């Protein structure tokens, strides 16, 4: 089949392209230009496009560049900034996957006559019954099913993850064997549109007004203050302006209307329930026993799912509002759906 392979300029997508070619597919590589602003994280940079193009040349496939900077701003950057001003802790990489890597790219692929879109994510698409589901990648430490959890049937049907059955070590070995320049390139870590030098603070500070926040104990006693309530996340321990040496204190709640940050002991972070909004499902809405994962590399914990409420089997640390929450089947092998922590 004719496959549009998203080449980021990293090692996973490089090897994914090679896997598709080996499988006999007609492959065209594409690099999406997403962030048009300043960047020093290496991601989305011209150097990455150079790497992607060179890999495509070495593998003997065509390479295109699509400019999706407007869509990236509208669907990822602007919502990211807006979420912070609302006191949420968003996950921009998930929004990028949702709107750019799949929606926008697969619509374009469809228009241009491609049968499928492939990415270098460590995940697998497999059939359960007669429906498609995102399964965890073969390398448990690198599994990325969490960040592609939002794919509905119509996307899953035309999505390929060619390195999902490989470990990261196998991917690198394959890249070395092929002599690809991306073989030893480090994994991308940070949000691509935020510079390492300025960080999140400089990025947000240039876009939204920061509000000073008062830090109080669970009894309401004022303990200190922070310069920007928008920079504080539930569960955070450092950087909330409290003197060191005392017992460890964590942000347990943020009240935006009064610009108050409540801190408490670690025990105060634990909750027995979690409300999830904006639910999406791979197939049908699900009620019953699930495994729930609340960060890209966090462990999934058992819970009962009832409507949009997660009832933890054991109390779990509360999840910062805005974070993605992903439901796996009870055997913890494939994604049922997910949403955003309320």
């Amino acid at each position: 089949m004719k496959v549009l392979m998203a080449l980021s300029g990293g090692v996973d997508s490089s090897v994914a392209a090679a896997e598709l070619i080996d499988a006999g597919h007609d492959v065209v590589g594409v690099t999406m230009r997403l962030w048009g602003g300043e960047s020093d994280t290496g991601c989305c940079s011209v150097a990455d496009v150079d790497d992607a193009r060179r890999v495509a040349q070495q593998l003997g496939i065509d390479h295109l560049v699509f400019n999706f900077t407007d869509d990236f701003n509208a669907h990822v950057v602007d919502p990211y900034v807006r979420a912070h001003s609302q006191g949420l802790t968003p996950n921009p990489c998930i929004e990028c996957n949702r709107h750019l890597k799949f929606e926008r790219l697969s619509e374009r692929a469809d228009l241009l006559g491609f049968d499928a879109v492939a990415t270098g994510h460590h995940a697998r698409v497999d059939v359960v019954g007669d429906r498609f589901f995102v399964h965890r990648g073969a390398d448990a430490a690198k599994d990325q099913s969490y960040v592609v959890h939002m794919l509905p049937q119509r996307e899953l049907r035309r999505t390929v993850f060619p390195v999902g059955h490989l470990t990261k070590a196998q991917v690198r070995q394959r890249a070395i064997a092929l002599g690809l320049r991306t073989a030893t390139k480090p994994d991308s870590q940070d949000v691509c549109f935020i510079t390492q030098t300025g960080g999140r603070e400089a990025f947000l500070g240039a876009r939204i007004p920061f509000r000073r926040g008062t830090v109080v104990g669970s009894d309401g006693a004022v303990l200190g203050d922070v310069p920007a309530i928008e920079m504080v996340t539930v569960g955070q321990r450092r950087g909330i302006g409290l003197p060191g040496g005392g017992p460890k204190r964590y942000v347990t709640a943020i009240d935006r209307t009064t610009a108050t940050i409540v801190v408490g002991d670690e025990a105060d972070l634990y909750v027995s329930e979690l409300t999830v909004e904006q639910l999406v499902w791979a197939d049908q809405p699900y009620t019953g026993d699930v495994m729930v994962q609340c960060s890209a590399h966090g462990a999934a914990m058992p819970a009962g799912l009832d409507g949009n409420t997660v009832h933890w089997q054991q109390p779990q640390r509360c999840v910062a509002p805005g974070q993605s929450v992903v439901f796996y089947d009870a055997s913890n092998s494939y994604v049922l759906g997910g949403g955003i922590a309320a």
Partner: protein
Amino acid sequence: MQNGYTYLDHAATTPMRADAVAAMLPFLTEQFANPSGSHRFARQVRKSIDEARDDVADVLGCRPGEVIFTSGGTEADNTAIFGTLDRRGGVALCPAVEHHAVLHAVEARHGLVVGVDATGRVDHDALASALVTSTDPVSIVSVMAVNNEVGTITDLAGVAAIVRRNAPNASIHTDAVQAANWLDLRTITPHVDLLSLSAHKFGGPKGVGILMARAGSAFAPLLVGGGQERDRRSGTHNVAGIVAMTVALRATDHERSAENERIGRLRDCLVDGLQDGLDDVTETVDRAHKVAGSAHVCIGGIENEALLYLLDEAEVCASAASACASGAMEPSHVLAAMGVPNERARGALRLTLGRTSTEADVARATTVIIDAVRRLRTGRAA
């Protein structure tokens, strides 16, 4: 060109003339000497450069001493802007639709950028007013002879009159890189002090160009070193390139008026064909204001990035706006300056014809483009 391809991207680069290729060969083999040397082999090569300079001067309508050989259009443009500012101080001024080789140079020195009308020609009133109201004196005004994206021809006589009247001490530069195929350069040079050309746009090789600098137009060299080109451009001469460029320039000058007619007819046929076959195709600039080889249209209801992929797949080479360093298509600064709305600019398509273009190319491109646009508009692959 590989068999089967339809090449309609001559404004990006045009195939080399066979006689220009042939003219290079002796200088890549036996005549290898450095023309700045003091022995007979050097003098032989030097003679070829001096002859080339005479030929160029003849085509440009200037004196041989006013011809400086450069590495291309960008170097010529940069030398004109940076060199004039460095020698004379003041600020540079250009319209917003200039090629980036001029625009980015002007912006890098915090120069003045003035608006254009709907056809892409510099707004004469805005130009005059910018010249008189600038707090720093304007020392160089750079206005392109022909726009590379939409093909608009500038009224350089009109521009020159405004500059001479309002800023008599300013140098006038024109980026004439897109003009050589279509306009008699002798009609341009009387109005300007500095003029840039690039060989690969008119059948010469890449990596060589010309800066014409009128005697008395003071500018500092961009490159210093061995003092070649009378200290105005150091660096060993690209002898093969200079000789081949000159052969191509002479031939272009000779064939120009016949080619204008022939290619103009092909261009008309192409644009008419697209407008007959498709709804909602608008010509960005009317034909009376542009060069014969340029067809620029905005096609409603499609994204040009997707269209270019389908054209590429069907072996039709076209373009949209200029590409950025990553190879991604950038929104066109030219169309934005002309006031073309974003949603129209998204469907912009530049088709540029040249010496090798034929009726068969036009017929094939018309069919392929119409098919591709219909396919994109219906929203699903055929």
